[in-house]
């Protein structure tokens, strides 16, 4: 430890930090986890099995909500990036960071559940179908975003650069979307999010909505935890800097 007033101030502040311990695993995570379990109980026992695909279709209740939440997450990155460049609000940058990481997680879920379903139904793990390709490139864009964040130490520079990338990445999505769709697509056509009414039977639709809601909770809980982690990290950095300054 250091001597002198600066050191004592730091010690007081550290003690202050310790007085309010903030667990990252909190009630939000718990509620989200319970919701996912409830959704899956419903999926497995209380939802009819699809006639032709059999049990393999059950993965749909994980696959689609994860995909929708990934889009939600990247949408949040886009909006908070704009907000950051506009207002220079540190919190917007933290939300963008958290949301990008959680979005990447959901995209990973989509990219793993897809092939698991694809193997028995399509007979192949992977195909360069439009939506698969789009999802893969989404993964690349936001993996790049996270690598960029990791490559910059200075917080305000990091925030500005990643906001620029967060906006440009969102602008890129429609272009990748259009170009991969010009190739022929094998993926099942939308049965829920389409201009006409959903063609899913009501029991399945309700399960899907339940599952989607559960995943929104997962998204919120994870973003919240990740947000708090970044606040804690910034505080640790600040404390370390002040300790070094006092030495």
């Amino acid at each position, binding site marked *: 430890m250091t001597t002198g007033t600066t050191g004592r101030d730091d010690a007081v502040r550290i003690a202050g930090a310790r007085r309010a311990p903030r667990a990252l695993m909190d009630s939000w995570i718990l509620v989200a986890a319970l919701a996912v379990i409830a959704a899956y109980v419903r999926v497995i026992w209380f939802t009819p099995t699809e006639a032709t695909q059999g049990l393999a279709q059950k993965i749909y209740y994980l696959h689609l909500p994860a995909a929708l939440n990934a889009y939600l997450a990247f949408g949040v990155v886009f909006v908070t990036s704009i907000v950051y*460049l506009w207002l220079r609000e540190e919190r917007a940058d933290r939300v963008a960071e958290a949301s990008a990481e959680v979005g990447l997680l959901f995209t990973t879920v989509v990219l793993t559940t897809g092939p698991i379903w694809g193997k028995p139904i399509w007979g192949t793990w992977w195909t360069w179908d439009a939506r698969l390709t789009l999802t893969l*490139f989404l993964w*690349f*864009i936001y993996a*790049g975003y996270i*690598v*960029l964040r990791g*490559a*910059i*130490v200075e917080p305000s*520079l990091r925030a*500005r*650069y990643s*906001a*620029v*990338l967060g*906006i*440009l*990445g969102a*602008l*890129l999505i429609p*272009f*990748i979307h*259009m*170009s*991969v769709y*010009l190739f022929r697509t094998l993926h099942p056509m939308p049965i829920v999010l389409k201009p006409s009414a959903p063609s899913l039977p009501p029991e399945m639709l309700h399960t899907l909505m339940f599952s989607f809601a559960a995943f929104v909770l997962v998204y919120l809980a994870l973003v919240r935890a990740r947000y708090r982690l970044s606040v804690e990290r910034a505080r640790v950095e600040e404390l370390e800097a002040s300790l070094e300054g006092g030495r």
Partner: protein
Amino acid sequence: MPDATLDRARVAGAGVDATRLPGLLRATWLVAHKDLAIEFRTRTAFFSALVFALLGLSIFYFAWDPTAVAAIDLAPGVLWVIFTFSGLLGLQRSFGVEQADRAMDALLAAPVEREAIYLGKAAANFLFVAGVQVIAIPAVALFYNVPLGNIWLALAGIAVLAALGIVAVGTLFSAMAVNTRLAELLLPMLSLPFFVPIVMAAAQTTSRLLAGRPEAEAWPWLRILLGFDLVFVLACTIAFPYTLDE
């Protein structure tokens, strides 16, 4: 690169007679001219990008079985992939040269719009990429025995559109990447996802042209290319000032 060469290039760039052009264009031209003068006098990056492109073209030839896949089917893909990668070599350098002697600070201190710095850099990069293309495209025709005679004008048009998109995004990311810890690694990682629609559109259009398909089949791809250029030239010009120190 000797510093004296750089300095001379900078001075020469500033000394050009561009007084007749209006503000933004004039500053853009000065920045572009400065970069091109450095490149023209050293020729290191251009030469290495060119050799890289030719090397890539020759290596690709041996990566597939010519009796199974016709050269005409392979050439468009090879051409645009090599184009993208050799373009990255030039882009890497774009803001890299400003690091020596903290030249970037001097550039920022200059009384010009920051958009002009971006546009000037992008213009220089465009000419760099186009210069590599002027040699690499005929080399594809030569090495892969592809008849480009009747489609060369259309191909040049696609090359211009593709280069515009690559340069727009790549210049911005080059400015960002030099200030990070990963520098050289980060530029391809950030840029390549953005080059996907460009490479797809350019390769698809080229293969349709080569196969003599009706023009209508190439239009949807060209529209994507045009749209990409429009959106990203604009978005990156607006975004660039945000990447600079304030």
